[in-house]
């Protein structure tokens, strides 16, 4: 257990058993019979309490609580001052068991009381005594109306009935404070001036911007209409283009294209047929077939060699003529050609099949 704990416990026990402390009770009882003593004791304790509160107030940082405590102190002081006359009356009364010296002493005590009560500082400076009455209230951080000054004034008036010149004497601190105040005000004014200039410029700019916007509004409307028109035109053009392209690729045109293609191919095939199948190939085939026959004839009679050669020549000539005829686009044989062809078989009277071949 620590010392502090011991002390606390001792105190508590003492308080508890104070009742049984005969000596103390005797002291208290002494004053129990004596009204004066009682009253005096109570006043004394009040004064002590007030002194303690005054000390607390002086240490107090917050002005508001200090002021409250001071006000309470003043009230207490006033009450105590009221009690003083009562005490005086009681002091004069003779009480049994009291010596004359004590009586006189009591009187003195009672007389000393008011002074002691006044001495309790309640934040108001005892102005008539102190020269720097106003000065005491001067060094303050904020400008606040302290009722203490007023009370001091009123007290002075009530107590002394006159104003001392010293009341209104400015101390150094107060004039310094005033100077500082003026400087700060000037600086604030300067700052405010700058701000007002800036605001003026802003206002002007804002007004100009407003007017500019008003100017732009109809222009924007115009742009809006024009662009709307352009979009409509574009849309229209797009649709038309789409239609045109679709038309180009439509199925009807496609079928027509195919049919025409087929017709062209058919014509080509027909032509191809005619040239190759009908005219050329048979002649070529004939030539091929005739060759072995010619060879046979020739082997049988070499006399007919001359004839054979002439035969071939004639055949070639015939082919050529036929080709010519075909080149003339398969026209019906002209009279001249027919005549030419008809005369030819006469060259070969010994050859009957050539005639068949010809016609």
């Amino acid at each position: 257990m620590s010392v502090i704990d011991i002390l606390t416990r001792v105190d508590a026990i003492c308080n508890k058993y104070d009742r049984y402390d005969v000596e103390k009770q005797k002291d208290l009882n002494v004053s129990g019979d004596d009204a004066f003593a009682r009253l005096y004791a109570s006043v004394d304790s009040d004064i002590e309490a007030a002194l303690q509160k005054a000390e607390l107030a002086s240490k107090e940082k917050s002005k508001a609580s200090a002021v409250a405590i001071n006000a309470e102190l003043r009230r207490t002081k006033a009450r105590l001052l009221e009690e003083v006359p009562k005490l005086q009356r009681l002091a004069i009364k003779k009480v049994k068991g009291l010596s004359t010296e004590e009586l006189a002493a009591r009187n003195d005590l009672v007389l000393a009381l008011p002074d002691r009560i006044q001495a309790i500082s309640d934040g108001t400076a005892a102005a008539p005594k102190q020269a720097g009455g106003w000065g005491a209230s001067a060094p303050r951080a904020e400008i606040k109306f302290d009722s203490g000054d007023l009370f001091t004034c009123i007290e002075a008036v009530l107590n002394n009935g006159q104003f001392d010149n010293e009341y209104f004497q400015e101390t150094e601190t107060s004039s310094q404070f005033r100077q500082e105040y003026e400087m700060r005000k000037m600086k604030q004014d300067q700052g405010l001036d700058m701000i007002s200039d800036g605001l003026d410029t802003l206002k002007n700019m804002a007004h100009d911007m407003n007017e500019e916007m008003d100017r732009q509004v109809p222009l924007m409307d115009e742009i809006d209409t024009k662009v709307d028109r352009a979009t409509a035109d574009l849309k229209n053009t797009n649709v038309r283009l789409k239609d045109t392209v679709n038309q180009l690729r439509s199925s009807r045109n496609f079928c027509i294209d195919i049919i025409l293609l087929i017709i062209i191919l058919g014509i080509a095939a027909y032509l191809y047929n005619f040239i190759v199948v009908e005219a050329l190939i048979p002649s070529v085939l004939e030539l091929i077939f005739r060759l072995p026959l010619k060879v046979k004839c020739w082997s049988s009679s070499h006399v007919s060699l001359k004839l054979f050669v002439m035969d071939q020549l004639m055949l070639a000539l015939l082919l050529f003529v036929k080709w010519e005829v075909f080149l003339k686009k398969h026209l019906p044989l002209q009279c001249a050609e027919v005549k030419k062809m008809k005369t030819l078989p006469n060259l070969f009277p010994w050859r009957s099949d050539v005639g068949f071949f010809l016609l």
Partner: protein
Amino acid sequence: MPISDPDKLISKADKLTKLSLTRWSADWRNATLLYEEAANLFRVAKNNEKAKEAFEKASKGQEMLSSYFLNEKIRPWDAAKHMESAAALAKELGYWNEVTDFYRRASELYMECGRPQPASDALAKGARALEDDMPEAAVQLYNDASAILEEDGKEQMAFDLYRAATSVYIKLEKYSDAASSLLQLGLAADKCNATNSQCKAYLGAIIIYLYAHDFKQAEKCYNDCSQVDAFLRSDQNRCASKLLSAYTEGDIEEIKRVVQSSTVSNLDHVVIKLARKLPTGDVSALKTDAGKEEEEPLDENDLT
């Protein structure tokens, strides 16, 4: 066109346009195209003289086209554009008369197209080009341009023109004209409910009158402007009244202080310059004048 030589183009175009036995009507369309090309080439080659001629001819060609083909509304537009380019080149070359002519012609063509906005723009450009050398003509152009805009009902655009005209007038030291153009600005601003510009214009006019040492006129102007509600309620009004009262009292310091205030600093540059130079001449003379005027009525009263 494979031919890149602008001279050849010009000669070709000329041939197309010249009427002769073989050619009964000038082929203006092709000729104009050739002229345009030649002009562009000249401009690139920095041959300003020729370029200007080419532009002139191109523009004339466009005009001819427009007269032949009345349904082609775009043509006067192109003609006007060419005129403007020709005018710009003329400005570079320093042919001031031609500049005015071209710009006026261009603006007329724009009006034909039914577009007053570019018309006034063309005149304004011309005026700006002429500001330095022919200020009177410039100011004339400015006034015409503002007239066109006012007719069209677009006063908002006219503000800038009025301000420019005012600055030219001040340069010419024609202070009453300058003040009157500012008052016209005020009128235009009133129609558009542009109160700030209006009040600034009125304050500027008053300052110009004071600068021209015409105190009576300034007072008259102030009284006229006070009739206008918007001016009455504005900062500029207070500033003007302060200025005038400072003048009547002959308080130079006060005048200087008013002039340094932000209200005056928000006005036009030229006006601020004038204001800073206030007070001109003898302010005390104005004071005695005002004093004398007060005495006379008393005398009359005495007589009657």
